[in-house]
């Protein structure tokens, strides 16, 4: 992977000047490279990983839903995926290999809300043949970031 993408995938808050010095580009070159990646859709967005549990907000529940579907004659899985990702509640949709077709990550305020969303919105969709909903109890690591705090155990009294 190109170093620039690696750097901003780990820390999108770096300035163009910082990215430039780290990769050995000029500031303009770094800015242009990022703009090109954005325009071509290689960089799709910038996201902050938040540990909601630390806020002690109990109004955010996440579930992973395994969907089995019957692919449509002309559009296969694509049109179904588009329909699913249209819902605001849906955080991510992926086509899977193996025992089911789509993995759908859904967030809501309560377990009840997600259950209703599955029952009333997802399950009734044409082509959906079954759903299996599993709720997330605790998140340990997200997008490569460890959510629980860990102390730096390195030997601080050594030179």
């Amino acid at each position: 992977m190109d170093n620039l993408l690696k750097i901003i995938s780990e820390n999108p808050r770096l300035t163009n000047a910082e990215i430039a010095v780290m990769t050995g580009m000029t500031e303009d070159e770094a800015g242009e490279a990022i703009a090109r990646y954005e325009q071509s859709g290689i960089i799709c967005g910038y996201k902050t990983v938040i540990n909601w549990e630390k806020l002690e907000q109990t109004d955010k529940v996440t579930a992973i839903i395994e969907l089995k579907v019957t692919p449509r004659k002309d559009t296969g899985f694509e049109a179904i995926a588009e329909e699913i990702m249209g819902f605001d509640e849906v955080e991510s949709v992926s086509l899977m290999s193996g025992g089911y077709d789509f993995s759908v990550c859904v967030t809501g305020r309560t377990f009840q809300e997600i259950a209703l969303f599955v029952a009333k919105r997802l399950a009734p969709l044409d082509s959906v043949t079954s759903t299996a909903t599993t709720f997330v109890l605790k998140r340990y690591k997200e997008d490569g970031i460890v959510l629980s705090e860990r102390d730096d155990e390195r030997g601080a009294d050594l030179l």
Partner: protein
Amino acid sequence: MDYDTMLNRTAVDIPPSGIRRFFDIAAEMEDVISLSVGEPDFPTPWHVRDVAIDSLQKGRTGYSPNRGFTALCREICGYYSRRFGLAYDYKTDVVVTVGGSEAIDLAIRTMVNPGDEVLVPQPSFVCYEPIARLAGAKSVSIVTRVEDSFRLTADSLRESITSRTKLLILPFPNNPTGAVMRREHLESIAEVLRGTDILVLADEIYSELTYNGQPHVSIASIEGMKERTVVVNGFSKSYAMTGWRLGYALGPAPIVSIMAKVHQYAIMCAPTTSQHAAIEALRCGDEDIAKMRDEYDMRRRLIVRGFNALGLECFEPEGAFYVFPCIRSTGMTSEDFCERLLRKKHVAVVPGNAFGSCGEGFIRVSYAYSTSHINEALRRIGQFLREEINS
């Protein structure tokens, strides 16, 4: 009992580490951002850990031969040949030690007699002088200067040599300055040493961490130097294996055989789980090194720029993972700067004089930290400087 009068005079008289009190202060604080640690922030590569676990599961938990497993000695010699073009005999020229530190201790104890002088370029790692003193030798500091990119120069070496000089320590890539001796610089040092009986201890623990596309050159590869040089290296910095405590020394068989004898009586053998892991690291770890080096290099550029932008002039290091910015412009001493920075902004860095009195006016800052950590520390240091200047 009056321990002070009973115990070994030399050991009692060795001053304690000067940075201890900073860490005591830091330990009392919350939200300290530290840039003080001298070890990688990466875990040991998984395949290396896996081999160690496997060796434990299979019950391979006994001693090894005193000098280390033959397979490891072979890999070490193979590595030095492949990376640095040096041919060593795995049967006679290598001893595997408990970290590079033990190799330094063995080498100095083996090479010096009481009354000998040991030349130590400074600023540098802190262990050479105490070990030389414990061996009854006198440590003589050679000051390296920022104007010379903190390299040892032939002139300063020549001026320091007396009839008692036994050993030159060559600690490059250097902790704390990040200085590197390139081939041409080593040639000029070799020029001074050729024709003398002065031995060399080349501490090459940071040999894999050099930047700007300039691979490390070992002084042992310069004509006339191999016969007088003990090379010390290890797995801590290059493979992120500090806690495994594994290093080695390579050198002429007559020196290494005495070192191996001392090692045998003091240590028996280096930990064998670590030795199994090290074999794997040498066989399959080149890619890990390259990845970590690449990461350090990006941070190095970021932090050098950061300090220069703050107005603290920062020599561009070509090796290791430290920067050594000059803080004289603040009017503070190194210790003053570090203590105030710690108390006011909760940022921990190490005063330069911990690495020899000539390090006064500098601070050592490690970049073995994530970019967001580095940037947060720089932000706080910037605030600190503005407040100090305005007050």
